[in-house]
Every structure is written in structure tokens, then in C-alpha cells.
């Protein structure tokens, strides 16, 4: 069975109950697509054009004043890989130690190559990547590091947003301190074997036509 390409369908948008909003800014600070702005009226305003309906604001609003409303039309978030230099896409992925076909967002099924393509199409931050591909708009938790790794591999240093959408890139198995790998009490973490396994994946990506 051939599975359809992963797509991020957006079928809802955040809605603010203005009578309850206190302008606390929390929704603004957790929104992965920077689609919420608390203005001078101290009320949160949602940009429906970029909102991905992820529900981060709904889940963190202390006043319970955000809801998701069905949209009339379903929006698809997807970056086309056509007409982009495939060798460049692969180069970014491999430099970030990702196989181009590796799934980096488990909610949307987005693969590393699509993130690299989005970067080549101008994405300069995790927020841009979320708006273009839908990554980070499912669980909002697990895929921030691949996003930061791929941006770094492409030579892009993202500007940190005002809120706490993300803080920073962390280490990978490829840059653990060497003395750590050799500690006998850490043998149960199988660092060397896991590095071998992940290296194999990356090398398969390098040799794949």
C-alpha cells in the first residue's frame, strides 16, 4: 500500500472571548506560529490567516477564554520540493544528521527534506517552519530540536521570539563529550551502539538517489 504524502490540514482557528480576556499575554507567548497579538486594548487578537488551529492558546489560557472554531475551508500546509535543488536539500539534512526521509514531526508526518525545502524557500525560524509545513502545530512538543538542527545546518540563526515558544538547540549523540561515552557506569545507555545505528540512517540518506 502506498501511503499518501503527509499533509497538515488546518480545519479550525482560535477564537477569543473578548469579554473574558485579561490580556495576560500567555497565548501570545506559546503560539508556535506567532499568530496572536495582545494589543493596546489588552485583548488577544488572532490572525486567522496564519493560525494553524493547534490549540496551544486554548490549552494554556488561564481564563479559559480561547476556543477552536471550525473553519469554512480546510487549509493545507505543505512545501513543494519541486524546482528546488535536491542536492542542497540533501546537504542540509545530512549536515543536521537527518536522513532526508526521516520523520521529524510525528503528528503531521513531516519529513526532514520538507523542512530543508521550507528553509530554501525562505523560512528563517521555527515559527516560519510551522506556518509553512505545519510542524510543531500538532503536539507542539517533540519536534523543536530537528527544526533547530536543520536551520543551523542551513546556516540560519533564528531570531528568538518574544515569548517562550523555544529557547535553544541542545546536544545530539554526535557531539557528546568523549569522556562520557567511555564511562563504564554509562554502558546501559548504549551510546556507541545508538550512534552506530543513527550513523547508518544518515549514511543511507547520503547514498540514496
Amino acid at each position, binding site marked *: 500500500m502506498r501511503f499518501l504524502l503527509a499533509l497538515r490540514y488546518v*480545519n*479550525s482557528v482560535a477564537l477569543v472571548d473578548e469579554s473574558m480576556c485579561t490580556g495576560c499575554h500567555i497565548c501570545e507567548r506559546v503560539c508556535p506560529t506567532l499568530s496572536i497579538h495582545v494589543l493596546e486594548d489588552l485583548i488577544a487578537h488572532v490572525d486567522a490567516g496564519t493560525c494553524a488551529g493547534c490549540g496551544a492558546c486554548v490549552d494554556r489560557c488561564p481564563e479559559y477564554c480561547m476556543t477552536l472554531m471550525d473553519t469554512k475551508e480546510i487549509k493545507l500546509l505543505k512545501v513543494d520540493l519541486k524546482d528546488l535543488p535536491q542536492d542542497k536539500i540533501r546537504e542540509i539534512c545530512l549536515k543536521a544528521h537527518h536522513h532526508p*526521509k526521516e520523520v521529524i514531526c*510525528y503528528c503531521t508526518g513531516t519529513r526532514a527534506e520538507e523542512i530543508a525545502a521550507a528553509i530554501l524557500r525562505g523560512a528563517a525560524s521555527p515559527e516560519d517552519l510551522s506556518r509553512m509545513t505545519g510542524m510543531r502545530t*500538532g503536539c507542539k512538543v517533540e519536534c523543536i530540536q530537528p527544526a533547530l538542527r536543520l536551520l543551523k545546518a542551513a546556516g540560519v540563526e533564528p531570531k528568538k521570539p518574544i515569548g517562550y515558544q523555544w529557547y535553544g538547540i541542545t546536544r545530539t*549523540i554526535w557531539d557528546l563529550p568523549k569522556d562520557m561515552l567511555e564511562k563504564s*557506569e554509562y554502558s546501559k545507555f548504549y551510546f556507541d551502539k545508538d*550512534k552506530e*545505528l543513527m550513523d547508518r*540512517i544518515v549514511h543511507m540518506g547520503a547514498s540514496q538517489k
Partner: protein
Amino acid sequence: MTTVLETETHSPRSPLPPRISAYGVKPEYIQKRGFQLPNMVFVRIKDLFPDTPGVIWPPSNPKLIRETTIRALQDIDMSYIKPNHSVNILASHHGFTLLGGEPYAEMLKTIRDVIEEKTGSKNIRLRAGVGLRFRETEEYISSFKLDEYFGPGKAIGVAPIDQGVPIETEVGTLYGIKTIYDANWIVHAHNSDVREVHFHRHVDRAVKPFGMSYARIETRSTYHHNLGPRGANFVARAIFNSQFVRDKWAFACFLLPTPAGIVGVDADRDLYKLDERVTMLNLKTYGKIMTLLGKIDSAIAVLDFACPVPYVFSGGVIFANFCGASTDMFDLDNPLPPYTWYTEAYYDEDEKPMLPETPPPNPHIKAIVMNYSWIGYPSVFWAKHFPIIVVGDWHKQLFDKDPQNIEFMKYVRAVTPDLDSAMKLAHEISRTEKVIVFDGAAEGINVSKPLAELLLEEAPGVSTVVDRELMPKWLKQRGMKP
């Protein structure tokens, strides 16, 4: 003549009722439960494995949980906590899914009371972390009235997208949730349930929340993408060993579940010592039931519990681990379990594993019937790999609107109006009469009679293999003496 089946099985056990939640359908939609299907029986864990430790819950008895917790804490040094100090009791959502959540809630209340009594501190708070359903612990806090018990504003749910705090560790900067650490002292109030063996592989199990439910997204993403399927478990240890955490560390207090029920409460200032005790208990108890589930040659799995797809329970084992039961997930020499996120990441667009040695999801699961389960966990992997039949259009609508499962229904085999028609279809697809229900029933498993026969027949052999062959290997791999 009385058969073994008649003496060692019982009438099917009624599970806990559906829970009101933002992540599940209204309880009134659940018209029929899996245990009510024809030909079902209940197999007690104790009948499968007579060496199962005695339990203190069930039956329901909060007083016994309180007494056991007080006993576990009586020798724990708390002299460093002064009356003017603040204390955060750290909890996680998962404890509230165990046997209805009351035992865990009672343990949390008791810890609070013991700390107050022993130290004089009046500023004791509850900080309850979550998985991927950010309001979940808020629901439990309200349901168990923990907000009233701890006092106004002192019991809160925290989420991995909340404001963070950098933590310097042996593997560089990682990030915790600020409100987890906003007290003089932290108390790690968790449970020893084996749960996600596919992720933690029972390496530093007791430490895991420091890299997960107490951690920010950057840290959790490091766990699931950066360090490998076994190496990832170092993330929690790195944070726990940091000076930042050690400066606030008070002690750990764990509820001890087994497949048969709660067997006690354990506490220690040395988390690694507690982890060794938990590891020994779990490999023996969960090791046996999980190995036994791996002997099932064909089955329909009925999901019927107030949790997302991977976390519904049967015999103390979550469904995700039944998907991996065709391999030995405790064996650390196996790098990739059939399901884990590293495994999922390495499937190509044709849904074929990139690494040829990747074990397939349990091929003995012939069909899945989703009678009652929650949203809030990316579950499309199961829909791609198993025939899934969803009961009720209300269930479908819930998943269609879940940003974590936007494509789930695309791969589902069918949606039926009720459980009976779903089972009819499942039997046609699977051609098996063996049925196992993941409904969180206490003390045992609701299964069909043919499956009960298989489990009872295989259990003694499994018990011997685990005791004599697997336990020594598992312990050695974790640096422990058999």
C-alpha cells in the same frame, strides 16, 4: 468434570467508567464496554503468576494507602526543610490513570500532610506535569479536589510549553519548566508503573520525569530525536544530576503498582537506590506479563479506557507495549522496539522500515476495535499498521479535530455505529476468536475464553523462563546483580 478454565477464570470484571474530559467523548456515548461481549472471562494475574506480590489496592481503601505512605516516609530525613521554606510536590498525569487515580491522589495528599507535620512548612504546593494533553492534570486536580486540599492557587497543572528555566548538565544546557522548580525544595512524587518500556527500556525508569513531565519541549525533543533509542534515557539523568536540581532535591516517594494492583509505597532520598528496587520489582512482575502477552498467536484488541490509543491498559500493560510484545523490549541488545518514535521516524514514504532489521509491529494483533479512547497523542502509526475499526461517529469526529491526529481517520478501516458491529467486522478480518480488552480492569485481564486458555497454559513456562533466563540478562544489562 471441572476444567482448568472453569477453576481459574471468573466472570468478566467491570472496568472503571468513562471519565469526563476534554480529550474524550461524553461518557453517555459509551453504550457498551468490551467486558460485556459474549464469551468473555476474567483471568486474575495471581492465577497466571502465583508469585505475584500481595496488593493493598484493590479493593479500594484510601486509608491503607495513607498508612502505607506514612510508613514509607517515617524514616525520610526532612530536617533541611525549614518552616519558612516552600516545597513543590512534583506529580505527573500518569499516576492518575492508575486504577482510577484515587490511590495516587491519596498518596499525594499524604505526602503533603507528612511534610507539614515533620517540618512545619505551610507553603507546600502541587505541581502536576503532563504528557501531550496540557489540561489533563488540571482535570485530575479538580476531580480529586486537590486544589481544595492544597489550598487556593497551590495545586496547578504545568505543561512543557510553559515558561522554562535553563539547567546546566553534563550534556550541556537543557530546559525545565519554571514552575516545577519555583520552590526551595522539590519532592518527586511518582509511580513505578512500567508503562512506556518502548521509550525508556527500563533504564533509569524512576528518573524519567525529570526529562519528560517536568521538562520543557527542548528537553523532550532531545529525548525523542537527538540521542538514540537507548541513549535518550540519559537526558533525565543529566537533569537530575545537575547542581540546579540537586540544590532543590528533597526526596522521592513512589506508588508501587504491579499488573495485579498497588503493592506498596516506597520512598528514598537516594533516587538511584529506589530505582534499583523498582527495576527489580518491575522486571519480575511486568516482565512476566509482557512476555506472556508475547505468546498470544492472534488477537483482536479492544481499546476501552480513558487514555489515548497507546496508553489504554490491560493487565497493567499499556497497548503500545502489546504492539511490541512480539519482541523482548527489556532486552537492551535490541536497539529498536517495534514501536517507538525513533522506529517511526525511520519508516519511509512507502511505510517500509529503512533499516531491514526493524521488527514489525506485533503481527499477532489481527484487528483493533476502538470502543473508547482519547485523543491527544499522535496515533497514526497504529492506523497505518493495523486494521482499526472505530466505534461511533462521535469517536471519528473527535479524532478529525485533533491536531495530533489530523490524518488518523484516513487510514482507519471502518467506522461502525456500535461495538457489536465493530466486533463482527473485526472477527471477519481477523478470523480469530481470541479477544483482549484494554479497559484498565484491576487485578487481571478481561479476555475471551480461547485466549484465557492460552494464557493459563503458557504462564507457567513463561514464569520459569523469566526467572531463570531473562531476569539475569535484563539485570546484567542494567548493571545490576541478579
